[in-house]
């Protein structure tokens, strides 16, 4: 009898501590995610009462008859290649210089980091302003054709605008991660190599680079998942335009649901999308696990 009441007490305690958090998460994420599974086998416009069970038709449609979705996949993959390479190369270079602890570097770090802490609204309006009135003004002064190009009106150029914006916004984040990795490299190793006559490029390639491999893998995978999930910039800034030239997978799903009102199809797409992203996230979790134990 005593042990039973003790067990009830420990359950109540557990419920008191854990359930409130669980309820919030269930409401905002778990339940909507599971409902995706249910909706994905229906033909439904998201508003009306008529839901027709269509089985796997939505999924079949995605793989056989949905050119815009695959255009989105292509754009997302292309973006991923550009973004991952540029942001990592640039932030690693910056981090190499900024990892020294001086007053100037702490100011420099802050400069690179600031775009990461301002909102997407500000970022998108800032770039809209620069590419619009800003470039117009610069063109009339310099006469350089580059300022006269229609950066947001041509799909090809809009792609580069999206890449530049994403790199500008996020560089600071990767820089900070790289700096943390570089600082952890024992100074004695570098000094020993220098005394043995290694040049700074040699020191970087033979000592720093192998020692910061964990940081590199984390940044590579984080940037890759970011690229796969690219949505915010598209929704706020380009809205997929011009001529569907910047539609990503995630934005295609959003549009399918709220613009085309094909709600069932959109949920099916979002599940296909989850599988894409899960594969990358699973690798990411595995790689970062060793690090998280130390922290």
């Amino acid at each position, binding site marked *: 009898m005593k042990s039973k009441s003790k067990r009830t007490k420990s359950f109540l*305690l*557990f419920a*008191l*501590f*854990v359930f409130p*958090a*669980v309820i*919030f998460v269930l*409401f*905002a*994420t778990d339940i*909507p*995610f599971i409902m*995706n599974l249910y909706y994905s086998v229906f033909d439904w416009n998201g508003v009306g009462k008529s839901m027709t069970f269509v089985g796997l038709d939505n999924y079949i449609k995605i793989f056989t008859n949905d050119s815009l979705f695959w255009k989105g996949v292509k754009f997302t993959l292309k973006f991923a290649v550009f973004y991952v390479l540029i942001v990592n190369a640039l932030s690693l270079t*910056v981090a*190499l*210089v900024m990892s020294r602890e001086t007053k*100037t570097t702490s100011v*420099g770090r*802050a*400069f690179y980091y*600031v*775009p*990461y*802490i*301002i*909102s*997407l*609204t*500000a970022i*998108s*309006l*800032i770039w809209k*302003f*620069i590419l619009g*009135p800003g470039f*117009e*003004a*610069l063109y009339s002064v310099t006469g350089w054709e580059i300022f006269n190009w229609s950066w947001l009106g041509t799909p090809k150029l809009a792609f580069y605008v999206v890449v530049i914006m994403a790199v*500008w916004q996020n560089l600071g984040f990767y820089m900070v991660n790289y700096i*943390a990795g570089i600082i952890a490299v024992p100074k004695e190793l570098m000094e020993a190599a220098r005394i043995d006559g290694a*040049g*700074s490029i040699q020191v970087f390639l033979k000592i720093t680079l192998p020692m910061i491999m964990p940081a590199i893998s*984390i940044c590579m995978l984080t940037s890759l*998942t970011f690229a796969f*999930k690219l949505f*915010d910039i598209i*929704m*706020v800034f380009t809205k997929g335009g011009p001529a569907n030239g910047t539609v990503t997978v*995630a934005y295609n799903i*959003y549009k399918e649901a*709220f613009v085309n009102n094909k*709600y069932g199809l959109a949920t099916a797409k*979002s*599940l296909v999308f*989850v599988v894409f*992203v*899960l594969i990358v*996230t*699973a690798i990411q979790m595995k790689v970062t696990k060793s690090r998280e134990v130390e922290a």
Partner: protein
Amino acid sequence: MKKKPKNLRQINGLSIVIFLFSIFWLMPLLLIFINSFKPYNDIIQDFMALPKSWKLDMYIETWTKFNFPMLIGNTLLYTACTVVAVALLAPMAAYRLARTDHKLSKVCFVLIIMPMMVPFQSYMITLTKMVANIGLTGNRLGYILVSIGLCMPLAVYMIHGFVKNVPIELEECARIDGATEIRTYFSIVLPLLKPILTTVVVLDTLATWNDIITNQLIVGGKAGAMNIQNALYMQFSAQTADWEHALPGIVMSMIPSLIFFVAMQKHIVGGVTAGAVKG
């Protein structure tokens, strides 16, 4: 020995480029700032020049015309509610989950962590629909509930990792001395979690203040419930934007983030690295 000066020169050459580049990196923000004081004609005439006068007229006009007090009030309310709820509930859950090992504990942990694996974009449309079905669209409370739920997983995950390294002996001592479980938690465990809790608070403050996507989805264009980011976005993202008001608006919306960044720089940078696993 001869080689050493050459190495130093190489490093300095790169350093100078990187430092100059950092100013270039900040350029877009500087341009927004100086142009926010100019009338539109001056912007077009001389984009890079400093304004002729630093009068705050347009700032004051934007402040009243677009009802900034209400927008800032809403955003502060959202940020405060989210941060307080997460800072209260996440460590409780994380602590209990780290200290128990039964099946229910494992199930709850998976339920809380799952959203970190699947992208928000995959369930946001169903979430929006669900919130609409229970009649909370365009509603302050609806947005706050969603915001708390979205911030919770990473917070619990980070604190959970931290609790595992807090020695259990302290709690056992307190229990032997006759403290209840709840008392032990609040007076022994919670103070020990302060470092990770600071990180969580800082991350969630920035995330909620800067949120546009969730506010857009849940609140839409409902005038009374928009946060500042959403309102500026709705107001100024049209084809021909009203830059004379938009620029002061952007600057004012950024000032709190920037002040917060300067004050909490250490925690922000440390916290972001700690949260990197989420991606």
